[in-house]
């Protein structure tokens, strides 16, 4: 498969507050939300960004779409660096790349009908000649997300829809411009269990129908395994392990991935009783004033002296990328 998108050394730093005295001395401090993340997305694949809250997964995705301005790095899409496109030419990129947000209760305008929500992107981009054409496109996309018959849903407002139906509308809105690349930010975490599978299966079907490529953000490794072909495990703004989902989950190499996987609950009491959890101290430190060396060092059950001195680089080990001195 060819590479559709390549992220190289992406950095997003937000300025943090410094005291008045420090500001006089010209001191600056940053929250390094994303600090040197690299990975590749192959055409037609589903790459999952996985990590705990504050690991920088959402910021990474937003920076790729330029919904936040990155501090540095490159995002190469079909040979072009997205980060160098002038702002006024961004509209073309926004047509190619869409996002589905986490909360369908907040991401839809409560005062717009389903029809207005779906036709607005067409109008903004001046893609349609006539009203019939517009109606036809809206109808088709509603059918594709299985809100049928479409006429029944076009006139409804978000409050007249269930959570699952709202997320279908949000997906339809992302699809209506015929994008190639979609970022899905925890698209089912606000939905009930029985609705989740519907939406996950729908997204997989749409990938085949529309020839889509997904960047799928989730904190749930089981969901990543259900959806993904590749996985990027993030910790405190760094990618610590990048590889095929199956391989990484079966045989994690980075200590953080090992810890994380050992703590994922398993929906089977027999298996749950036999699994061994790897003990770990504390919670992730603040992304301001990071410790020298490996960011996971202070909590790592396997840390050696070198881990507190040198920051490990992401490098190739047996077909995947790992950032750890010990592998």
């Amino acid at each position, binding site marked *: 498969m060819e590479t559709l998108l390549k992220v190289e050394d992406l950095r997003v730093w937000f300025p943090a507050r410094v005291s008045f005295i420090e500001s006089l001395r010209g001191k600056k401090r940053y929250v390094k939300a994303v600090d040197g993340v690299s990975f590749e997305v192959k055409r037609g694949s589903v790459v999952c960004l996985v990590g*705990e*809250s504050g690991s920088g997964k959402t910021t990474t995705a937003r920076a790729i779409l330029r919904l936040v301005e990155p501090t540095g790095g490159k995002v190469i899409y079909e040979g072009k660096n997205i980060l160098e496109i002038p702002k006024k030419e961004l509209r073309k990129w926004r047509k190619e790349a869409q996002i589905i947000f986490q909360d369908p209760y907040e991401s839809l305008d409560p005062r717009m009908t389903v029809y207005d929500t779906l036709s607005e992107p067409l109008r903004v981009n001046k893609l349609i000649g006539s009203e019939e054409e517009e109606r036809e496109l809206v109808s088709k996309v509603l059918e594709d997300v299985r809100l049928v018959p479409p006429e029944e849903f076009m006139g409804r407002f978000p409050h007249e829809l*269930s*959570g*699952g*139906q709202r997320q279908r509308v949000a997906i339809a809105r992302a699809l209506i411009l015929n994008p190639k690349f979609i970022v899905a930010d925890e698209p089912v975490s606000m939905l*009930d*269990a*029985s*609705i*989740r*599978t*519907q939406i*996950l*299966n729908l997204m*997989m079907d749409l990938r085949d129908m529309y020839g889509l490529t997904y960047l799928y953000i989730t*904190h749930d*490794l*089981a*969901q990543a*395994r*259900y959806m993904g072909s590749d996985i990027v495990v993030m910790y405190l703004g760094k990618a610590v392990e990048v590889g095929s989902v*199956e391989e990484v*989950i079966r045989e994690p190499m980075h200590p953080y991935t090992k*810890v*994380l*996987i050992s*703590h*994922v*609950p*398993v*929906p*089977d*009491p*027999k*298996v*749950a009783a036999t699994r061994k*959890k790897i003990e*770990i101290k504390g*919670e992730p430190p603040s992304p301001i004033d990071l410790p020298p060396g490996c960011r996971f060092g202070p909590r790592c059950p396997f840390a050696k002296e070198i881990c507190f001195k040198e920051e490990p680089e992401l490098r190739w080990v047996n077909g995947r990328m790992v950032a750890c001195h010990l592998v």
Partner: protein
Amino acid sequence: MGRDVLRIEDLVVHYETMAGPVKAVNHVSFSIGEGEIFGLAGESGCGKTTIALSIMKLLPYNGKILSGRILLGDVDVVLLTEEEMMEVRWKKVSMVFQGAMNALNPVLRVGDQIAEVLVEKEGWSKERALERAKELFSLVGIDPSRVYDYPHEFSGGMRQRAIIAMALVLNPQLVIADEPVTALDVVVQSKILDLLKRLRDELGISVMMITHDLSVIAETSDRVGIMYAGRLVEHARAEDLFGEPAHPYTKALINAFPSIVGERKRFEAIRGDPPNLLNPPPGCPFHPRCPYAMDVCREKVPKLVKVGEEHEAACFLIGGA
């Protein structure tokens, strides 16, 4: 398991609304044994939190227990006055509310918030109450010296531990935990679940674990009840429920949770949405979404019938028509 700490018999709870009564809990019965962790699972709106609030008698003003009994030991809390309930809450049963870790008073020290219960309810001196708070902190795995900290100095996991410590302050026999790990990260989540199991082992308390997440149930519970649209549709020992689920809804719900172990395959989703409890469908509440629905399912409500040892399910496919 010892004797029952909690027994609920034929409980019916409705909420009065402008549009009519919302039938939140319909003829639910189950019991929780001494030292047992009982998982009550279901999707939002299935009535699981309403059951917890009924046990605590903390239903909102428009919530009414229409019939049934809630026995804590020999006492039926349905019959108790508000004054009598003061002797039951905290002492016999306490509750860890959903999101309570974010509801700690930000301007009071965490230790004082725990001690307050003892000072107010039991008339203890502040010093003695703080000592007890320290004891509880070390029990739940927080350094006792941190009773003097404010909530913002605690991480999410520590706040949840403090809330659990608070629930234990007057030695209740039963702790109800409503979605205790929902907003927490994976590693913290697993540590809190381990804590609840350890407290059960060390103190012999019973825990009623309310959650939408079946993997949380699988990690902790001895027995499980599955609720759908205000009804208990199946209950069993955890290994039987996951190993041999009987109700089509239970099967579908288990399938809605992908796992990091086992075969990787595509699950069939349940179609449609859960019903509106203002106007629930006639017959079995699951029939509009059930792939196996028969004529009888649209007419009559199935009763719980025995499927195995300590295992019952309410479905006409199993029997009971």
